[in-house]
């Protein structure tokens, strides 16, 4: 059987315009275009458009870079900001040692601690639902107001859905979960590079607490309590980022 080249397709025509064809494929297409003058005219127009875009918009990058966009300036600002937040948060941070060998899953006394149960429930829910492709959330972000009212009714206290867009997090939605002590909620957010972060909420016990870091099988979590609600924030972010988001939740705007 003789080997025959694949027939010419729209993908070849597109790649011809962008000079993305292999030399062999390009030669084949040139021969084909000899018999198809209308297609050739069309592709010449498309190539002329590419030229026009490059000639007209290309120079937009030539303007001198303003000082504020210099990498050194950006670094300086980031350092100042991180120092401010880390300074405030450092005193309030405890580290919760969790690991396969640290008794996390063992049914010891510590495992009965309510906050640890919450963290475990939150991380488990995080791992189940961030991996979910079809139904990551039960109520989507479009129904944000409804989501807040609904979770508030089920948790028996007002639930504000935090707007974390200033921390580069987009709300995907949320769901109701069975928590260790009754109904719980999970809100899911996404970073610009599509990593998912969840905020687990349960009714609080009336007392506020410090930040508690936990990490279990590669899922870092930050837990804390306000008088109204108990929170666990889980996501593949550095600690300072989790703290920054936590501050954002309590200081909107």
């Amino acid at each position, binding site marked *: 059987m003789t080997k025959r080249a694949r027939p010419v397709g729209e993908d070849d025509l597109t790649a011809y315009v962008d000079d993305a064809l292999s030399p062999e494929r390009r030669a084949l297409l040139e021969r084909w275009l000899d018999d198809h003058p209308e297609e050739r005219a069309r592709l010449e127009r498309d190539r002329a458009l590419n030229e026009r875009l490059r000639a007209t918009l290309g120079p937009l990058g030539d303007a001198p870079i303003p000082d504020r*966009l210099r990498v050194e300036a950006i670094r300086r600002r980031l350092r100042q900001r991180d120092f401010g937040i880390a300074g405030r948060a450092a005193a309030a941070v405890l580290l919760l040692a969790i690991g396969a060998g640290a008794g996390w899953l063992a049914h010891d006394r510590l495992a009965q601690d309510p906050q640890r149960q919450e963290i475990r429930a939150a991380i488990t829910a995080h791992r189940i639902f961030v991996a979910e492709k079809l139904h990551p959330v039960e109520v989507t972000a479009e129904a944000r107001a409804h989501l807040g009212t609904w979770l508030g009714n089920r948790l028996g206290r007002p639930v504000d859905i935090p707007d974390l867009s200033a921390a580069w997090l987009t709300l995907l939605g949320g769901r109701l979960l069975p928590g260790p002590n009754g109904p719980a909620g999970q809100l899911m957010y996404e970073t610009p590079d599509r990593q998912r972060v969840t905020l687990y909420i349960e009714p609080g016990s009336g007392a506020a607490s410090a930040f508690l870091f936990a990490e279990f099988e590669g899922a870092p979590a930050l837990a804390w309590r306000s008088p109204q609600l108990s929170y666990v924030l889980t996501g593949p972010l550095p600690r300072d980022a989790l703290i920054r988001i936590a501050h954002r939740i309590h200081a909107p705007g």
Partner: protein
Amino acid sequence: MTDRSREIEACIPDLRRYALVLCRDRDEADDLVQDTLERALSRWVLRRPGGALRPWLFAIQRNLFLNARRRDARSRRLFAPGGEFEGEAGAPPEAALELRQTLEMIDTLPETQKSALVLVAIEGFTYAETAAIMGVAEGTVMSRLSRARAHLRKLGDAPSGGSRLRRVK
């Protein structure tokens, strides 16, 4: 200056150009680039090891733009087509006119097609890189390009509204 800073800084002119095409306003565009750089520097550790820097920066910038646009869609006029940017001060009037017409022309495309066209035709990304930046399959990038070009061809052929946009040689 570290190698990393140098590598990032080399991408800034391209990021500013893409931001300007997205935002159509110099200050908005530079705010977007600034957010992109802050994000990139503070999330450097989350970078895929060995991944190319320039497509990564473009992906962050586009996602930040889309998030901001979604957020601002209702409350502000920002990012509405037909922003104020009409060329750098001091550019010759013909060049400014050509620039404005070109920007207006590609603004008639949906963002998905506009970005595909700009990333491939101006920024010189391969189809695979563009697909990674936009989070879609390579075939999707190619069909977006094809649709964008068909639309712009039709625009050039239109007798009334489109004629204003036709290239004057």
